[in-house]
Each structure stands twice: as C-alpha cells, then as structure tokens.
C-alpha cells in the first residue's frame, strides 16, 4: 500500500508541471473548429497555413512565413499542423518557435478521423501539405497548394491593405 501511495503522490506532484507544459501549445483542431475559426476571423484578412512536422517542403517554408507575419502585423496568421497522427505537440511547438511563429494562432489536428477534419475545410483536399488558404476581408478564399511564394503572399496582403482605404 505504501508503494501505491508513493506512486500516486509522485504522480500528483508531477501533474501541475505536466499540465503547465500544455500552456502555449497548439490548440487541438477538432470537428467544428474550422467554422469557429472562420467566424472568429470574419472581416480580418487571414492567412491559414497547413503543415506538418515530417513534411520536407514545410520545413523550408515555415521560417519564411514567420518573416511574413513579422512584416505584416495587419494579417491574422493561423497555422494548423495537419499531420495524420497529432500526438507531437512538443515537436510542433518547437518548429513553430524556431520559425518565429510562436505568437501566431497555432492549431494541431486533434481528431484521428482526419478525413472528416479535411472535408470540413475543403472536400477536395486529400491531405497534401504544405497548403495555404488566404481569406480576404470579404471572406473570399484563395487556396495555394504546395509551398507558397512569399512574393504572392505580399501581393495579396497589399490588396487587403488597399481594400481598407
């Protein structure tokens, strides 16, 4: 009994730090999250970037996106880690941090039924990453498959700034 008590107390002692580690971690992207996200950013030009920790081209693009966010404070930058098994919040957070995206609105697929999550976002999307969706102030969505050219993002951002004047 002593051993069980000790084990339980040790578990209790480690819990607060384990839970605290979750702070600042990407939010779980679940069924319905996409509509909430669209709703929350309605009226704001928003860049939504889908990526994953095992995707080679994503590793190249992510820091460029960090630079874009710094240069364009008027654009809401959202990242969604869309790898199929989402149980790597640490690796995800660490890559976001080093890419300068720690302060972006970061999500991670939190439902093993990824087909359903993708269907809610775009029924035609089969899971290829990276992928970027540019949501204009008026809700118009432009999808860029594969790595985005920063020049194209800048151009889109300029049209959004012009639309406010």
């Amino acid at each position, binding site marked *: *009994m002593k051993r*069980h*008590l000790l084990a*339980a107390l040790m*578990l*209790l002692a480690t*819990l607060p730090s384990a*839970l605290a580690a*979750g702070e600042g971690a990407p939010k*779980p992207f679940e069924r319905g999250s996409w509509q909430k996200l669209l709703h929350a950013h309605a009226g704001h030009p928003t860049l939504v970037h889908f990526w*994953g*920790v*095992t*995707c*080679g*081209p*994503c590793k190249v693009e992510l820091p460029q996106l960090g630079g874009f966010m710094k240069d364009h404070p008027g654009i809401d930058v959202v990242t969604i880690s869309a790898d*199929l*098994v*989402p*149980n790597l919040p640490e*690796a995800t957070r660490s890559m976001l941090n080093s890419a300068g995206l720690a302060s972006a609105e970061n999500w991670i*697929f*939190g*439902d*093993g*039924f*990824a*087909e*359903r999550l*993708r*269907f809610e976002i775009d*029924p*035609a999307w*089969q*899971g*290829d*990453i*990276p*992928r970027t969706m540019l949501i204009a102030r008026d809700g118009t969505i432009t999808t860029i*498959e*594969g*790595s985005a050219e920063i020049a194209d993002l800048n151009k889109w951002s300029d049209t959004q700034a012009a639309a406010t004047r």
Partner: protein
Amino acid sequence: MISCKSAVRIVLATAMLAAYPNLAKAQMSHQHASEAACEETVLRCASKVTPAFAPDGTLWLAWMAGGQISVASSMDQGKSFSAPVQVTRDRLNLDWGPDARPKLAIDAKGDIALAFSIFRDQAFNGQVLTTRSTDGGHSFDPPKPITANNESQRFEAIGFDPTGAVFAVWLDKRNRAPAQQRGEKYDGAGLFFASSKDGGATYSDARMAADNTCECCRLALAFDGSGHPVVVFRNIFDGGVRDHAIVTFTDLATSGEVHRVSRDDWQIAACPHHGPSLTISPAGTYHVTWYTNGKARKGLFYARSRDGGKTFSDPLPIGQLNHSPSRPQVIAGPQGLAMAWKEFDGQKTSINLMTSHDDGATWSKPAVIADTTDSSDHPLLVTDRRQTYLSWMTKADGYHFQAIEGEP
C-alpha cells in the same frame, strides 16, 4: 468489500479528478485524437495492418499497434488468428506517415521477410529496418538497417521473386547532402534497391534506380511474368511536376528505363502522402491506379500497359470526385481484376469496389462493400489464388477481412 488498497486508490483518483478536472478530459481526448482505438499491441489497437498470403495459403498479418510491430497468421482466411508474435522489442518511433506501414512477404519454405521504417531522430529522418523469421513466424531476428548509409530512408517495399530472393526498394535521401555541398539544389529522394539471397538476413549493397523522385509517397512493387521487379513511384519530372513513373528491372541488380505512366501535370512543392498501386495480370498487362491533383486531371485514375510499361492507356477516372476518392488499390486475382478505394461523404468512409473480367478493358459499376464512421487504414487487396479479399483496419469497427464476391 473494498480493500484498503483499493479504497486509497479511489480516494486518490477522486482527489486527482477534483484537483485537475481536465485530466480525465485530456485522457479521453488523447484517445479521440489517435487513429487507433487503444494503445496495446493487439490487432484491435492497430493503426496499420498489412496482409500477405504465403504460398501454402496461410494468411499473415503484420500490424503497427502500441508502438510495436506484431504478426499473426490465419489458416481459415482470417476467421481466426494465431497468438500474436511481437517482432519489435525496443520502444521505436515507428514511421506513422499516412503512406507508411510494415511490409511482409513469405517464401515457399514458410520463411518470412519483414521490413518497416522508423523515425530515427528529432528531425524525422527515417531508417528502413528489416528482419526475418526462419521458424514459421514464431520468432524474428533483431531488426537491422537495410543499408549502412545513415541518411533518411522511408517507404520500403519488399517481395520474394520466383527464385526465392528478396527484392527491396525504398526512398533514400543520401544524395541530398553531397548536392548541397556542391551548392546545388536537391529535390526529393532517390529510388534505391537491394536484394537478399538469404531470405532477408543480409542485403546487397544499395543501388539507385532513379534520383529526385517524390520523397513522401508509398511505392508499388510487383513481379512480371519473368520474375523481374516492376516499381511504380511518384516521380519529380521537369518543373517540379509530381506525376507517376514506372521502371521494370532487368534483374535484381539492374534497373531498367524509367517511363511515364501519365501526364497529369501536377506541379506542386508538397508531400502528397498518396502513393500508387500496381498489379500484373497473367496476360502480362501492367495495371496501375493513382491519385493526382494535376492541371490535366484531378482525382483517382486507372491505366494499363500491354507493352511492359512503355505506354499506358488513357487514364480512366475512378470514384465520385465530390466524395474525396482516395487510396486506390488494384489486384489481379483468380476471377479477374479488382479495384478498391475510399470515399468520404462528410460523415462516413466507404470502401468502393469495381471488378473487370477482360483484363481492364471494361469495369463493373462501383459498389460499396464496407463502411465506417471513424478513422481507418487504407483498403488493401490480397489474393490466395482462389479468391480475392479486402483487408481493412478501422478504429470503430476493428479489423475486416472479407472475400470479394464475383461481379458486384
């Protein structure tokens, strides 16, 4: 009666739940977040299951569950299975990419060759490991790397040729660093291969069949009527176009000419995570299915080649485009060809089937043969030369192994 020990546990559990109300929720959502139904090593908890028939008609499964690879066999076409045997012992970071899975092949003696990938480091560099069993699957050698090279390797495929040699092919990043040192841009990965004359105990030195192929899709491997390996892979053609290519090997150590399967014109700097399928019918016809999102066509397609992969028929679209058709598989079985793929209608994933009795010239109307309402593995087709079967792992409904009837 509650013992003293249990009482303490209950009290502590209650205290923990009161102190950390999110704990129970966190544990539940962890399960929800997973592709697998549970976290043990048993078949029910598997996220990926790969079937293979032995020449003697025994069905073998290799699966990924609880962070381990296990196998079991069935003498009654999947109705009952032997006690599982765990192939891996160490806690490995198994490659969980959408197109990764353990592979196995069984020779005429009943010896088993098995291969799988792991993530070797924090940067998700892969490593292909192989092992074998020479005692009918009761035990496996400790897994070892297929090549001495230490660059990233993934997406292996293995098979026994008619002489009993194991042929292995995989994607390998060994040419990346030298190219970058020369100041050159390096795209994708090399298609590398090796063979084993001792049932997978040792493999020959790795050779390259093609460089700069797409690095994140599974490979399709089959043997032609003369026993030569044939491999379909997503290539990177000029301008970053990730369309499919095919190569027929001259022998186990010599690659052949690379031909293009179709001109889909999918120019994308991304990981499609969606590889092709290949089968070769008794007539010698190559049958290929694949996914593309190209400028020329989008969705799933089928084409066949009657000249050893040099030219292919016009791509035939498969499935309903508004139902996200994905993961196509084609197999030549005793009753003709069968093709299976997934569709998703917003709620339910269904497995659709088409058959052909004229070597792919015409196909039946699609029929739904299984469905599920949670995550699932790719649908795989396998044949024991008497019948063709669907093998499909689902999170909600467990493992399906079902005979495919004749014409649906």
